[in-house]
């Protein structure tokens, strides 16, 4: 049985279009209803900001501060099992944000993530299936990062090592130290890269079953769903059974093989930054061969599968944020989704009428940045 984590109260001040708001929230399903541009998604965005210290919409923080103001404030009261905690975020239009937990300053995002996790689905998530490999890599790495801080660190280190290595390859340096400096960054790339890949593969092992189950119940179909990890550097297909030494030596060999080509192109040509997660539906690549409807259901299934895996591995259910999810689904899929919803807290936005089978604990109408009672 997993621990419940609920956001029980939310205060907003000058956050996007919401000037001021104080909202009591409960367990189970809460629905925010309203026309577009009224502030429904903003509420989900505020909850996710508190959990992740950034917007799920991929916008810079300044955008979140109401025009003409110095800061936006989000406060959330969170009940974690029996404990009540107060998360506070001051998001500055200019300068450093301030994040506090129970009135004391928090310097690292990691310190908060075990206390409040969110799973988000937004209409843009169609890109998880339809878009390029980068979307799927980010999907895997975000899940990994919220499972264990060391993967968050590995992904950040990897990105930085990659920038250094590319700068070296571009530099045309004639320094005597060039070759050994490049070797140092090769080893760093190999270490951080293999750590990241091992994490992705282990995660994938857990995700695949959940993805199948989620897709089967949403689409009520028995079409097969398969995931494979595609890499341009491994000699055999990677299935998660490889130990870290195997991954290291395969990555090292690939770098050696490509040494002269990399010098010529002045770019790191192999590694986890170029890998992909290939998803097949009924044996065909979903990115190019699935219908738009299948892609939407698959994207939602990926998010729900991630949600299940996090719940399973951390023992606590993330708060589930579903933005405009019904506009994507027909009546039967919408009903299947509601049936599938986990027992934790869910916030859902919708512009219109709810499918008949949806019976929220709380429905709030949002108009012009305010809650209409």
């Amino acid at each position, binding site marked *: 049985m997993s621990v419940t984590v609920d956001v029980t109260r939310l205060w907003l001040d000058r956050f996007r279009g919401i000037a001021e708001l104080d909202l009591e929230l409960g367990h189970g399903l809460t629905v925010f209803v309203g026309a577009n541009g009224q502030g429904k998604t903003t509420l989900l965005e505020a909850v996710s900001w508190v959990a992740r210290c950034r917007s799920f919409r991929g916008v810079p923080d300044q955008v979140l501060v109401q025009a003409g103001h110095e800061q936006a404030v989000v406060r959330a009261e969170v009940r974690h099992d029996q404990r009540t905690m107060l998360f506070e975020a001051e998001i500055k239009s200019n300068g450093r944000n301030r994040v506090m937990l129970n009135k004391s300053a928090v310097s690292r995002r990691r310190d908060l993530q075990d206390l409040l996790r969110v799973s988000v689905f937004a209409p843009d998530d169609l890109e998880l299936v339809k878009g390029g490999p980068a979307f799927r890599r980010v999907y895997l790495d975000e899940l990994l990062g919220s499972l264990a801080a060391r993967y968050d660190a590995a992904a950040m280190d990897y990105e930085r*090592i990659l920038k250094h290595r590319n*700068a070296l390859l571009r530099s045309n340096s004639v320094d005597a130290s060039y070759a050994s*400096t490049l070797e140092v960054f090769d080893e*760093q790339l190999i270490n951080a890269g293999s750590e990241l890949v091992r994490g992705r593969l282990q995660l994938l092992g857990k995700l695949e079953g959940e993805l199948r189950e989620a897709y089967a119940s949403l689409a009520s179909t028995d079409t097969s769903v398969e995931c494979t990890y595609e890499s341009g550097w491994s000699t055999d297909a990677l299935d998660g059974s490889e130990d870290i030494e195997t991954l290291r030596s395969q990555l090292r060999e690939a770098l050696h093989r490509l040494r002269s080509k990399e010098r010529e192109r002045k770019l790191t040509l192999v590694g986890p930054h170029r890998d992909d997660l290939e998803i097949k539906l009924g044996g065909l690549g979903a990115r190019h061969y699935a219908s738009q409807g299948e892609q939407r259901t698959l994207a939602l299934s990926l998010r729900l599968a991630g949600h299940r895996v996090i719940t399973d591995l951390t023992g606590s259910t993330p708060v589930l944020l579903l933005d405009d999810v019904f506009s994507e689904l027909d009546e039967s899929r919408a009903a299947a989704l509601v049936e599938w919803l986990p027992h934790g807290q869910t916030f859902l936005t919708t512009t219109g009428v709810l499918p008949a089978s949806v019976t929220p604990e709380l429905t709030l109408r949002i108009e012009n940045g305010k809650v209409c009672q």
Partner: protein
Amino acid sequence: MSVYTEPLQALIDELNRLPGIGPKSAQRIAFHLLKIPKEDAARLAESIVVAKDRVHWCRVCFNVCDSDTCQFCADDGRDGRVVCVVEEARDIVAIERSGAFKGRYHVLQGAISPIEGIGPEQLRVRELVKRLEDDAITELILATNPNVEGDATASYLARLIKPIGVRVTRLASGLPQGGDLEFADEVTLGHALEGRREL
């Protein structure tokens, strides 16, 4: 075209060139300086000139000092066989505070960072190798920061120096990853020094 008068814009530009100061901070500081009394501004300018004039790099270890050699290199009570390699002079302060180290130092004056165009040639690496040839040094403790650049610098030095036959160790992990030595507390640094591992 600049919106400010020439002298003000020049001040903003100079401030903007300092590390960690972006255009907005540069503007804010410049306007602050315009508002303070003239003698305060003169004192600031004077202290920059005086510091630049009187503070030197220690000829042995490249720590900051006001004479030829720094206090640690001049102190006969310290163990000259063990040298702790740090990125910046300010890192010495953190290690001294831990009280766990009685050897001498070598300041690299930076870390390897290809993004910023900094390689071993831009650091005090050549001088370190020279010290190893001349002095009776038997162990180097690499206390570069526990982040990508600090680790790269430590690996580079280990590869370079181990063939010379000097024992090379790295501060034990337990320091916050991705952090600065400067911000590590005394207890953690003490433990890190005691538990250093062989490279």
